[in-house]
């Protein structure tokens, strides 16, 4: 087979000038180093959050006898654990809140993102294996592959090769295979070391993490193949190696540095999100419209009162068979939670709309596609963060309503405030634990990114297989 010989020659060439070895070693070192630092950071943060989650738990259990509504103002705290694979790709993790105070009547923001505690340096990014694989390895591939065809052209061996009966198609296939193999050589040792190190660290992987990991391997393989094909394509297109290298570097700068920031800033301009003050004001207004239990003249609750009195055939709320105050709070919490959910859902929709420019740009930019896919698989993208917030709100709602029920059923209406329920009841309430969504859930939302990576591979292959050979034939 001609093209395998070409591929082997290509690899042999870069072995001879040691560039392959240098790239391989530096990538392996960087991958391992970044993984170790990032994992250290992750386990430290998770230990912190876990410790405080436990402390909140024991504080909850150690409450003395209290009035249920007292307990629901005391509330709970939910801490967001870092996803097991977020050391690989931190995604938006450092910019997302880590703890949220859950109490009656109101939904608080998730506070204390890592970014809130950092100086301007944070804006340079964080070192992680994903950063190495997404940004640096493509550059390494470009350096290894830019001269694949132009090199032959410049040294005058190209006409010789073609005269020997090697077809353009075989030449391109061989070179692509060669550069792709080099991409593999550059990445595989580092990736293997990473796996061995993970295995030795004794972390037990759930099946879900395994799926996520495998999908990451597949996505990154595809991405690096695209990079290799790009290098050969540009090399075939350009006349000189210098021109090929310049084009590839320019491509890298535009795709990996300029477009990502540009697209996201454009997106946030096109779909502006409300400021906190506006968001709160909207919530407040809607609440006043739908029914504000803290407002004694509210029509909704006046109607509820009349209806309830009629239903139980009494004239005063104190004669009802349950605690009417708690009954009102149950209703009010339901209303306010619904309103919050609707508005928060709208806000998240705005965020998604802001991200949409990047998502569509990903069709033209495989780096953006991989970026999105990778953080989704690592469990560190916006969707995972939103999931935490929904789970925290669910937990808050259940906690408060359960306390309201306790209040309704076990606290008498008369002299409501001085009564207590026994501290033994606090054990009936669960601790907050974040249930990580499944790999399938994460992948399902990445249709555009997956389509982008696949179509890039197909288009590049067509270009390499069909267009370049015919164009270059004619040229001769």
């Amino acid at each position, binding site marked *: 087979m001609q093209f395998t010989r070409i591929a082997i020659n290509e690899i042999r060439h870069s072995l001879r000038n040691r560039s392959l070895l240098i790239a391989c070693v530096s990538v392996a070192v960087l991958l391992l*180093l970044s993984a170790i*630092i990032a994992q250290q950071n992750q386990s430290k943060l998770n230990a912190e959050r876990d410790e405080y989650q436990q402390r909140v738990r024991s504080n909850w259990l150690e409450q003395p006898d209290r009035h249920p509504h007292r307990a629901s103002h005391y509330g709970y*705290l939910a801490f967001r654990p870092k996803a097991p694979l977020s050391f690989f790709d931190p995604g938006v993790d*450092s910019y997302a809140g880590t703890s949220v105070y859950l109490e009656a009547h109101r939904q608080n*923001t998730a506070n204390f993102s890592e970014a*809130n505690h950092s100086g*301007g340096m944070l804006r340079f990014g964080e070192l992680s294996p994903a950063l190495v694989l997404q940004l640096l390895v493509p550059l390494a591939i470009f350096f290894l592959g830019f001269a694949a065809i132009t090199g032959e052209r410049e040294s005058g061996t190209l006409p010789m090769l073609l005269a020997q009966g090697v077809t353009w198609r075989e030449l391109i296939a061989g070179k692509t295979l060669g550069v792709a193999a080099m991409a593999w050589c550059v990445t595989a040792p580092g990736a293997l070391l990473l796996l061995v190190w993970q295995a030795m660290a004794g972390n037990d992987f759930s099946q879900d993490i395994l799926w996520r990991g495998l999908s990451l391997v597949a996505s990154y393989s595809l991405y690096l193949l695209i990079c290799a094909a790009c290098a050969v394509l540009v090399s075939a297109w350009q006349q000189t190696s210098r021109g090929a*290298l310049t084009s590839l570097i320019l491509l890298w700068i535009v795709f990996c540095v300029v477009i990502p920031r540009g697209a*996201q800033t454009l997106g946030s301009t096109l779909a502006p999100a409300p400021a906190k003050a506006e968001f709160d004001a909207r919530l407040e207004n809607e609440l006043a419209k739908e029914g504000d239990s803290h407002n004694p003249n509210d029509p909704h609750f006046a109607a509820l009162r009349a209806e309830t009195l009629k239903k139980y055939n009494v004239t005063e709320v104190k004669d009802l068979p349950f605690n009417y105050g708690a009954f009102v709070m149950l209703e009010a919490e339901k209303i306010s939670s619904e309103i919050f959910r609707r508005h928060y859902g709208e806000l998240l929709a705005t965020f998604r709309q802001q991200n949409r420019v990047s998502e569509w740009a990903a069709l033209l930019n495989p780096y953006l596609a991989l970026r999105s896919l990778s953080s989704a698989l690592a469990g560190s993208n916006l969707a995972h963060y939103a999931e935490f917030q929904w789970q925290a709100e669910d937990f808050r709602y259940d906690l408060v309503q359960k306390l309201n029920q306790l209040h309704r059923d076990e606290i008498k209406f008369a002299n409501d405030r001085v009564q207590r329920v026994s501290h033994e009841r606090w054990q009936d309430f669960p601790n907050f634990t974040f249930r990580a969504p499944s790999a399938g859930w994460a992948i399902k939302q990445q249709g555009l990114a997956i389509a982008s990576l696949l179509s890039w591979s197909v288009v590049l292959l067509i270009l390499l297989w069909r267009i370049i050979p015919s164009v270059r034939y004619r040229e001769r």
Partner: protein
Amino acid sequence: MNWPRFLQLELKNFLAGRGVLVGLLVIFLAGLYAIEHGRRVIAAQQKVIAATPAMQQAHLEKMLAQHATPDPLNTLYYLNFFTTHEPSSYAPLSVGLRDVNPFHLKIRILTLEGQLYDSDISNPATLALGNFDLAFLLVFLYPLLIIAFTHNTLSSEQEQGIWPLLCSQPVAPQKILAVKACLRFLPIAAIWLLTLLVAWLWLQLPLDRRFGFITLISLAYLLFWLAVSWFVMSFQRSSNFNALSLLGVWLTLTILLPAALNVALATFLPVPEAFAVTVNQREGYHQQWDRPKAETMQRFFQRYPEYAAFQAPTDKFSWGWYYAAQHLGDEDAAESSARLRAKLERRQQWMRRLAWIVPTINAQVAFNQIAQTELDDHLAYLDSVRLFHEQVRKHFYPYLLCNDAPPPVNWAQLPRHQFRAETSGPHVPVSVLSLLVLSIGLTLWARGRR
């Protein structure tokens, strides 16, 4: 040698090179986009800030309408006091952390430590990618242009065989080379200055020391990259070698090193104090409900003896006791809050130390500091909110902590938060000098190599 003629020809020759004018045009247009983006981000914040007084008034009226009867002081529980962190006029040049940290906070006279760290609602994906502002353009993209333009100053002469010819001239070839490199650098510096000029006109920046500092620091930063290029040139290797090494330096200084230092800093200086503050203030306040009221009041009077005459009813609820209990939440969190503050300052300190040796961090931090968009500026804002919170509390304590019927509250005259940190002469970090030191050092080293 006919210098004017040489310079003229050389410049003409260079500008006629492939892609040079396009490169300059593209970076200029990117500059316009960056200015406009910075303007928009800050303008959106200013819009909210400008609407705040009206919002405060409307909120006050609504709360009074709903809660002022029977006891007007009931309103206080629901009443938010709005505070804002106004941007400096230079903030659009370097948005810094103004999008990460909230620029407006509303507070009630409840435990402050439970309200002070409320985050803004923002898209973490946007935050993670960062702003496309002038500081980004300068720190990340301008060096690339310098590398592209200057890396082959010497090698292209050698590769084209002109170098021996130049060496035969009566002028020292190094001098010619230096002039050529500067000539290639000048259009870039000119475009940058033009961009700054446009920013000045477009954003109507006040022309004070800050503009001078921004100009000087950015030029020093650009010069540093010229020096790096000059240093690599002194190896007298091929254009490819130069381009690759310079790209490696760029990659290390703009991506690898800061990114690694970031994670390292986060790992070695973690901030568990933040959680401690939240937990402590919550426990500190809520446990007052399980205690005798006199105990709570006694602790409160230790801090505020001027209200010790107040006698809280022991058998029923009173607002005086309630706000005293709320304040004890802050007292209990004070220690962890101070530790949190100290930790953040330590992180800032380390960042500034690192700035001395990493020019990219240096330039970015200097820009943030002049634009007053650093973490320090946010912390100063939080301090002002602390003071304001105390001011409001002290305004109302005489109404809340009195044994007789309180006098009527004049709701038209409430304390207002004022925080305008903008100074025309903000603190400029000394570390910017290291940009010059590094540039000179590299140039001298390069000379020694020849």
